Every structure is written in structure tokens, then in C-alpha cells.
């Protein structure tokens, strides 16, 4: 049976992981390779690297990092952040990334999704959607959730699927950073109206939140950052507990 995926997300700047990461066992908590390896050993199903670099120079360092991760890690990983062209994707895939995630550039230029999907295959094109519920309507946001667009999230998700996205990474800005659980009703609606996998993101605080994302939210995968980085939830505990709740896991 296809299992549900648990995905730690690492923020990357200048080829290094950022945000405090509290793994005492690590010699260098800023080393993405060491951290990625540790997550892979713990049973993470995939990894997402989100590049928050601001300069071209920093981005080139990220490419070198991707190459090193691919050399040492034997599970799939996605790279997102600042990707806006076929050339960007080509460079990342050639450096060994398995998938790329596009966000703002797809909103500004939806044709990009078609172009990427046709050139590289839908299996490696994830579209990330940041959305916020405002007066009962889910509105897509740009630039890490700070700028609202006119797009309804469900309409945009449908369009993204029809343009050839292979999966959707949905982050609820209402839930992100709150540790109060995932946006399960919106997740369920997305999952029912689309036929591609949905990754839930934003709001993970407890193991029960993951259970709800997979049951109520019908998510195919769940992504989290700080609960893993700060050891608040360990991946083996999480996966065992999800399995006990009847959610198929790779153990």
C-alpha cells in the first residue's frame, strides 16, 4: 500500500541551514548534508530544501549544496525558493534534485508550469501555494505569504493541476507558525477536488495534528520544520504513532 509521507523542511541560505536547529548530536547544525542524512536515517520519507537566499551568489552556493546532498542522501528531495525559469530547474535537476517547487513565479507566469511539466515531466514539478483564509475565502498570497493576490486558492489549485503540476504543497498562512494544527477542512477540499497528491504544511505542533492532517485533511504527505528541528517530535515516534492510528507508514 502506498504510505503517507513525512517531510522535514530545511530553510537554506548561502548553502547553509538557517533557523536554530537543536540537534546536540550534530557537529555542525548548519551543514545541510549532515542534517539531511540524520533525517534520512530517522525515517524521513522525503526532504524539502527551501532556498531563502537573496543574492545570485548565494544561489550558486545552493547549487553546490544540492550536489553535495544528492551525493550523500539516498531518499528523494525537493528544492524550492526563487525558481523562475526552465534554466533554473535544469540546473537544479542536473545537480541531483529530484523535484523542484515553484511558487510566486508560477503565479506571475502560469505558463511556466506547462513549460516545466512538458520539459521535465510532471513527476518533478511541485507547485507550492501559500494561502490565507480571509472572510471565509482562501486567497493565494505571494512572497512568503505577505502579499495577497486576487486568486481563490481552490481555483488556482485546479489550474495548477491542469497545467501539469505533479503535486501541490499547500501552506496555510493562518496556521503556519501557530503549532495549532493543519488547515484540515481546506486540505480535505483540495484533496477531494484534485487528482494529484497534496502535501500539508503549516501548523504542526503535536503528533495528533499529523493524525488529523491525514484523516480529516486527507493529505498525502505532511511537511513540518521546527517541531523536527527542535526535537519536539521525533520522526520514529511520529511514524509509529501514525501507524498505530491506522495510517499507512513506511517503518
Amino acid at each position: 500500500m502506498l504510505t503517507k509521507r513525512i517531510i522535514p523542511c530545511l530553510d537554506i541560505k548561502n548553502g547553509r541551514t538557517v533557523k536554530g536547529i537543536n540537534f546536540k548530536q550534530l557537529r555542525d547544525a548548519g551543514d545541510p548534508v549532515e542534517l539531511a542524512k540524520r533525517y534520512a536515517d530517522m525515517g524521513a520519507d522525503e526532504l524539502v530544501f527551501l532556498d531563502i537566499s537573496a543574492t545570485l551568489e548565494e544561489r550558486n552556493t545552493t547549487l553546490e549544496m544540492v550536489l553535495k546532498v544528492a551525493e550523500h542522501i539516498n531518499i528523494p528531495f525537493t528544492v524550492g525558493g526563487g525558481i523562475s525559469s526552465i534554466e533554473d530547474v535544469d540546473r537544479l535537476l542536473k545537480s541531483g534534485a529530484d523535484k523542484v517547487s515553484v511558487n510566486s513565479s508560477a503565479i506571475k507566469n502560469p505558463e511556466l508550469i506547462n513549460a516545466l511539466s512538458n520539459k521535465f515531466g510532471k513527476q518533478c514539478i511541485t507547485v507550492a501555494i501559500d494561502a490565507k483564509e480571509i472572510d471565509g475565502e482562501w486567497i493565494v498570497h505571494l512572497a512568503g505569504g505577505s502579499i495577497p493576490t486576487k486568486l481563490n486558492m481552490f481555483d488556482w489549485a485546479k489550474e495548477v493541476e491542469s497545467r501539469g503540476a505533479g503535486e501541490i504543497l499547500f501552506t496555510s498562512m493562518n496556521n503556519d507558525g501557530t503549532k495549532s494544527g493543519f488547515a484540515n477542512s481546506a486540505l480535505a477540499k483540495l484533496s477531494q477536488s484534485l487528482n494529484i497528491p497534496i502535501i500539508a504544511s503549516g501548523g504542526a505542533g503535536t503528533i495528533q495534528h499529523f493524525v488529523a492532517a491525514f484523516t480529516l485533511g486527507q493529505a498525502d504527505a505532511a511537511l513540518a520544520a521546527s517541531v523536527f528541528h527542535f526535537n519536539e517530535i521525533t520522526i520514529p515516534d511520529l511514524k509509529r504513532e501514525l501507524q498505530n492510528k491506522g495510517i499507512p507508514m513506511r517503518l
Partner: protein
Amino acid sequence: MNVVIIDYGAGNIKSLQFAFKRLGVAAKLTSIPEEISVADKVIFPGVGEASSAMEMLKKSKLDLLIPTLKQPVLGICLGMQLLCNSSEEGSTNGLGIFNTEVKQFSTVVKVPQMGWNTITNLKSGLFKNIKEDAFMYLVHSFYAVTNAQTIATTHYDLDYASALQHNNFYGVQFHPEKSGEIGAQLLRNFLTLE
């Protein structure tokens, strides 16, 4: 050992090269027929769309070379699918090594299948030291119909052939290079095949 990865422009093959490097083997990327013919082991990878991948093979005449190979050949993902008779993806013929068709998953399930699923009914030396129901990583929208050459099955939408073998030709739908230690074991097994 002389291991080559056929480089015909279909997808990300860096990960495969790295997977062999982790096993201490320097696999060479090549599209040169002479280099492929003399290799001890041949990896036939591929991601992307079947009919365009087939066109790329024809352009480089690799479609004529591959079926004549005598050493162990491992088709991975789309590589495996192209070794079948035909594919519904772009309605293309395949290389006809595996006597089966490649079809699209129904919309009862999410497509592509993306993630870790189990392999069962394991029937080949390729799976030495790999247990029934081991997990492998898969990403695909099309599947090979089971036949007598099936050496592993996986369930998604239906039971399909997740690995096939005919003489020296092996094919796996999953990505051993991305399937953790179990995937590495499969690659190790492939390297020891005669």
C-alpha cells in the same frame, strides 16, 4: 567493474551516478554505442514522457543497440517501461523486450503515484537479501501490466508489475537510487549478476 548509465537526455541521472559512487563504483554516463556494448553492466534510466524518450532513443540509434546487449541491463522507471512492447503514454511502441503493455492508472487513485510502496512476490536474484513487502520509492503515472516475466508486484489502483526480467534484461519501476538502504542493496545485487 565497468558500469555505464545510458545518457540519452531523459531526465536526472546524477542521482544514479551518485548511488553507484556510494557503492564504490564509478559509473560512466555515455551515449556512445561502443562504450555501452563493452560495459559489464548497463543502466537504462529515464524519467519524463515515453513517446519523446523513444524518439530520443531512435535519434541516437540506441533503440537498435539496446535489444542486442548481452550483459545485465537494468531499466529504471521510464527505462523499464520503454523495454515493454508499448506504452499508452503518447501511444508509442517500446523496445519489445518485456512482453507486456504500459497503461495509465485510472482516476480512482491520485496520479502520479508518488511515495513509498511495497514490493511483493519477489522472484529474482535481483532481490537477494531483500524481504517481501520491502519499501521502494516510486513516482509514476503509467504502469506495466503483470505477465510471466514479472519478478515483483506492487499494488496501486491494481496489482501491477513493479519489476520484470527477461534473460539478461531487468526492469524496475521504482527508483533504487532513491530507496534508502534497500534500494542500495538492489543495486549491489545487480552488480553481482552474471
